[in-house]
């Protein structure tokens, strides 16, 4: 794997390999010494043009656990606020010898531009671009579902037959998009629930069922219920009348929590708006995987960085864009 840009074009075998390597990474995090020497001498740049706490910290923890050097770059207080272009920023990082760039950007497609432009030879990991994708979040969600379902027996398994319902602001959510593609690739059945105003126009082409009624979706007994954050910062138009009405119709309250099957899990990518899309009862219940998702996020990101950086020295430029095959041990 040379870049991790989206889950739409991620092949099933690559996705499973990533999840299986993440299992190994998770095992190493139980040890007395959690640091591995694997990426010693590699430099990873966290290039964040948008605010983020947990994703950046998660990538930073993952890189440090693998002994890579981490440079954090946030657009605030950098030359970007002086008007530097993405190209110049990227070329500066290239000159500093970055081996991988983890990028979050407000513009959909910015990571792909960075990966295919020829400005840098580093591997690129998409950490969220506009309303396009957030692949490592989807991978950690899939990892969490698999881990809860199969426990220590997770390796090599996909998610065939697992019912996943994603609720909330599908329109603006890159997490939802990445999950729809990845979960579909892994064989899960995905249902999307949202107010009609927050369903994208092109949703008919997605491998998912769409409904507007949360209680209808819950009657189908989903194995995993993923509540998305209402992104108040992207709500520049009136998508629903009031927060109270949203909470009543699409929020996960105590009553709806009780209606879930005994083995169902409640997921949330964080940060949560308690009392809006998810009630405190649901967020703190044993079914909630919110904190597991955070822990698994580090393992999944370690796996992604490992697969991007541990292989053969890369050839300069776009010529090496194809994925490399592993050898037999």
């Amino acid at each position, binding site marked *: *794997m040379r870049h991790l840009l989206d889950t739409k074009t991620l092949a099933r075998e690559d996705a499973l*390999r990533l999840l299986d390597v993440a299992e190994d990474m998770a*095992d*190493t995090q139980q*040890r*007395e010494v959690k640091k591995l020497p694997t990426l010693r001498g590699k430099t990873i740049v966290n290039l964040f043009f948008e605010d983020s706490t947990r994703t950046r910290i998660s990538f930073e923890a993952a890189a440090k656990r693998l002994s890579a050097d981490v440079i954090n770059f946030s657009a605030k207080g950098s030359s970007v606020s002086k008007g530097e272009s993405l190209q110049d920023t990227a070329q500066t990082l290239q000159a500093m010898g970055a081996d991988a760039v983890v990028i979050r950007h407000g513009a959909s497609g910015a990571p792909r531009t960075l990966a295919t432009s020829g400005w840098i030879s580093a591997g690129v990991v998409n950490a969220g671009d506009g309303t396009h994708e957030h692949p490592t979040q989807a991978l950690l969600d899939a990892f969490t579902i698999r881990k809860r379902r199969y426990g220590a027996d997770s390796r090599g398994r996909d998610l065939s037959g697992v019912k996943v319902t994603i609720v909330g602001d599908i329109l603006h959510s890159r997490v939802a998009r990445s999950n729809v593609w990845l979960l579909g690739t892994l064989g899960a059945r995905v249902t999307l629930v949202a107010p009609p105003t927050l369903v994208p126009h092109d949703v008919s082409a997605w491998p998912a069922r769409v409904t507007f009624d949360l209680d209808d979706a819950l009657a189908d007994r989903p194995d995993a219920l993923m509540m998305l954050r209402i992104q108040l910062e992207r709500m520049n138009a009136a998508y629903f009348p009031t927060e109270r009405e949203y909470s009543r119709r699409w929020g996960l309250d105590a009553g709806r929590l009780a209606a879930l099957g005994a083995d169902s899990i409640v997921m949330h990518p964080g940060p949560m708006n308690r009392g809006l899309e998810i009630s405190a009862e649901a967020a703190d219940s044993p079914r909630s995987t919110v904190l597991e998702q955070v822990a698994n996020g580090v393992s999944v990101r370690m796996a992604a960085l*490992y697969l991007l950086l*541990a292989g*053969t020295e890369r050839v300069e430029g776009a010529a090496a864009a194809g994925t490399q095959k592993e050898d037999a*041990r």
Partner: protein
Amino acid sequence: MSTRTVLHEADIARALTRISHEILESNRGPAGLVLLGIPTRGVTLAHRIGSLVTEFAGESVPVGALDVTMYRDDLHRNPTRTPQPTQIPPGGIDGKTVVLVDDVLFSGRSIRSALDALQDIGRPAAVRLATLVDRGHRELPIRPDFVGKNLPSARDERVNVRLVETDGVDEVTIGS
């Protein structure tokens, strides 16, 4: 391109039986022993030695697996390797006598990686090394404690260990 078989099924069984006795002898019994195989075939061999030791000593000996992929010093020279699971027996390795089990001992670099990996997991009282085949050409000051067969080889020859569990047949071949 010639390949010849240097160990057959019975030879491998005899070698493993002898190694098992030697492990028990040098450890003065099964107390505190932990066998850790290095994936893939080292794990299979560790399990075989484990059941032999258990049979001879009348007491079960914990067996596990130790993946060294993430500790290798040649990661960036080769295509990306997929790590294998590491399984440490419930009793851990602190204060134990760990016997590392590998199929072929060659440069010694895998064993160096294994020693680094062990250090991150705990602090054994002693670490020993058992290998089915020692083919020479060491690049590091590492030597095995228990050897199935010393096999003189040229550096560019290929030594292949095949085991029933993974390959359907028990044999060791050498070829150019």
